[in-house]
């Protein structure tokens, strides 16, 4: 690190975000045929908590002839300093300018991080749009969960990776290495790379528009899938950050995909087919992780950890092993319908987190959240009895068919919990209620639904604020305006690239942080670009081709439509299992439960 760069870092908040040098970080001085930098479109503490980034970083560094470094979105103070100086945004490992890499790969997990990508490109002194960049600049690529609908970002990237990076990113980097050796141009390389499953080159496969609507695609891109999760790469010598990060713990990934089929949930349909790791593999990985990191907390992560079949067996193995016995286990995404495993030692019980998502049974049936009133009651009663100090509940507002009664029922659930707590003489038992705004996301049965109007959302939030003025109950809610932008960015097409750039230039950045969300910048960008925002936020026509249909995600449109029909009838669909297939179509990408 140069003295000048150190001086700059000392003038900003939390300089260790930018300093690198963590335990298990890659040795960037190594000779390399390909130098890649993984860029994360959010702060260090968010990005370092991301399991996908962890996997890809270590996977690439183990690849022969490849060195992979990291870069995160600088916080506003650092961004300001970089803008005002001649210093460009640098990587963490070797403090190299981002322009000095072969490949710059963005991991994008949230629509409201799109402007952060542009901030990073600008601070790296890289032109924002692909068309403005020649072969002197690195290959700029993207991947991550937002690639469900890559179209809004189409103008910024050379190519985009759809699906599991363990497969397609590895192949892409390998191909790049060979092509670089023979001095192939960027354009030639991209034409060749487009043949890899999961590689989408937006300028090669632009949709055909007729009267402002998509008429056809010249080619569709098949999502890349790691077929056998048990044999898929997972790092156990991971970076241990020097500062505290959001999820500061070791993580093992139990399963990818979710069989529950909640109709609002994008991850559930995007990550199909359902794949699991064996308890034996996970136990070995967990032990290695704890030994190699020194963490005292281990997260058993998946979209629905309670549904992992071998959970009791894994938990008991972890609790009886010398290395992992002292480690605190955390289980995200538990379902209210499942028994809570005995995890913590007595005296260490904290709070539990559940997501009933909707207040009434009727609405829970509409969204296919397969839990009943009775299951909610018994689980929460059990938690109070066992001595938990509180519970956090997550709900959504603005769901299809939602009425005021559904919203008011959220408060009824809270009252009931307080009654259970009082019966157990636990008056200090606290309840935290959080409501987000329903976003009709692509690749869900609700992808055609309208986004609730701002007035409606705020009215319901205010109603709940009134109803939840109860002792030891805290209520928090998501901002209605940023949710609308999230829907726009999630469902938009290529014309959104222009809106994103205009919004960024008007001052929008770090939109996912409520204190930074710039409503006016977005309003200006939308009106200047002339897009039909109300159309995009309203109900979409089932007959029209949606921009994200350019991706072959496995799950078919027919299946989503069928599920939408069932939702309106208030009928539920049972979770899929090894013996009962819902025929969603994802099976063709590799087969659910393959390798088990």
């Amino acid at each position, binding site marked *: 690190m140069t003295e000048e760069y150190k001086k700059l870092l000392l003038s900003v908040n939390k300089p*260790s975000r930018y300093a690198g040098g963590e335990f298990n970080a890659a040795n960037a001085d190594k000779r390399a045929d390909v130098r890649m930098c993984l860029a994360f479109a959010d702060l260090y503490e968010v990005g370092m908590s991301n399991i996908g980034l962890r996997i890809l970083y270590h996977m690439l560094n183990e690849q022969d002839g490849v060195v992979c470094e990291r870069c995160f979105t600088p916080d506003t103070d650092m961004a300001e300093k970089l803008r005002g100086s001649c210093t460009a945004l640098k990587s963490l490992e070797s403090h190299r300018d981002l322009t000095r890499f072969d490949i710059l790969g963005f991991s994008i997990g949230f629509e409201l991080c799109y402007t952060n990508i542009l901030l990073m490109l600008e601070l790296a002194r890289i032109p924002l749009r692909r068309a403005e960049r020649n072969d002197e600049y690195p290959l700029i690529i993207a991947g991550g969960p937002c690639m469900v609908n890559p179209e809004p970002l189409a103008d910024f990237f050379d190519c985009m990776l759809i699906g599991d990076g363990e497969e397609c990113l590895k192949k892409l980097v390998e191909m790049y290495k060979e092509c670089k050796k023979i001095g192939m141009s960027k354009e030639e390389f991209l034409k060749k790379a487009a043949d890899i499953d999961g590689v989408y080159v937006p300028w090669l496969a632009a949709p055909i528009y007729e009267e402002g609507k998509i008429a056809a695609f010249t080619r569709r891109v098949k999502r890349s899938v790691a077929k056998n999760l048990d044999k898929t790469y997972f790092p156990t010598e991971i970076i241990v950050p020097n500062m505290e990060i959001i999820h500061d713990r070791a993580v093992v990934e139990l399963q990818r995909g979710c069989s529950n089929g909640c109709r609002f949930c994008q991850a559930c349909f995007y990550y199909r087919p359902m794949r699991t790791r064996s308890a034996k593999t996970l136990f070995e990985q967990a032990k290695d992780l704890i030994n190699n990191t020194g963490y005292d907390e281990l997260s058993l992560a998946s979209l629905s950890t309670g549904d992992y079949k071998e959970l009791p067996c894994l938990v008991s193995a972890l609790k009886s092993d010398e290395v992992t016995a002292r480690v605190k286990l955390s289980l995200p995404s538990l379902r209210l319908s499942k028994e809570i495993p005995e995890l913590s030692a007595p005296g260490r019980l904290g709070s539990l987190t559940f997501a009933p998502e909707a207040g009434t049974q009727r609405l829970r049936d509409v969204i296919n959240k397969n839990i009943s009133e009775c299951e909610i009651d018994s689980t929460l009663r059990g938690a109070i009895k066992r001595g938990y100090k509180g519970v956090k509940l997550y709900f959504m507002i603005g769901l299809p068919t939602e009425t005021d009664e559904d919203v008011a029922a959220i408060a009824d659930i809270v009252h009931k919990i307080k009654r259970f707590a009082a019966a157990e003489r636990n008056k200090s038992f606290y309840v935290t209620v959080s409501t987000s705004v329903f976003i009709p996301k692509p690749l869900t049965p609700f992808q055609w639904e309208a986004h609730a109007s701002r007035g409606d959302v705020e009215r319901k939030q205010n109603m709940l604020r009134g109803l939840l003025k109860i002792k030891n109950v805290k209520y928090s809610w998501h901002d209605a305006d940023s949710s609308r932008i999230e829907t726009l960015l999630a469902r938009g097409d290529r014309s959104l690239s222009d809106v994103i750039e205009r919004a960024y230039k008007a001052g929008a950045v770090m939109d996912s942080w409520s204190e930074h969300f710039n409503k006016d910048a977005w309003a200006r960008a939308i009106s200047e670009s002339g897009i039909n925002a109300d159309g995009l936020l309203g109900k979409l026509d089932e007959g029209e081709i949606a921009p994200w249909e350019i991706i072959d995600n496995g799950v078919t449109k027919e299946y989503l439509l069928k599920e939408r029909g069932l939702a309106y009838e208030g009928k539920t669909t049972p979770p899929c299992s090894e013996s009962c297939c819902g025929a969603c179509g994802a099976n063709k990408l590799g087969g659910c439960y393959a390798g088990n």
Partner: protein
Amino acid sequence: MLVIKYSKTGGASLVSHIDALRILQRSAKRAGFKVKYSEGFSPHMELSTSLPLPLGDESLCEYMFIDMQSEQSALQRLNDNMPLGFRASRVWQTEKLPPVIALLQYNDYVADCATVNADILKEIADGKYPCVITKKGIEYQTDATGRIKRLEYAEGKLYMTLKAGENNLRPDAVLRLICDKCGDVISSASLKTAQYVNVGGKTVNTDDYLEEICMGHNRL
């Protein structure tokens, strides 16, 4: 009790004290040290350090105190498990926690400095000018008299011995004063090179003191 001397240099100087403490604890865990834990609802590792180093400052002479028996090749194992910029150099075994914080008297520092006016430097050393320190964004003047034991310039380097512990004087305050009055300081922060303790009125290097009190115990 093991006392380990370690350095915190380069990028590690940007790690805050609280983060550094966590890093040392995790390093000890990774090294497989059998460290004692406190007893209670939230057991924590019995590992502590000498006084916090200001953010940005580098040091060759930090000390950590670990409640554990001596173990084979402890230094090597610890070094294999610490992040870049942290490096253990010596280890002592003592019966109990040595009072090196309570007895702390002076620290040695060195900083890069291009030019300096020798006469004014002497005046600064004599405490003729007050130093400016910043606390919670507010600047205060503080009298430096008797708190600068040594202030010398030689071949592009400034050598300082400043009061540490009670009534201490931070090196950045002195560097700032030198910048203002008589020199061109290059370093953004200083490098701490030695700590001294007051043993019965005598100033002794902390290393020598630790050597003295662990006499009779097994040398490591």
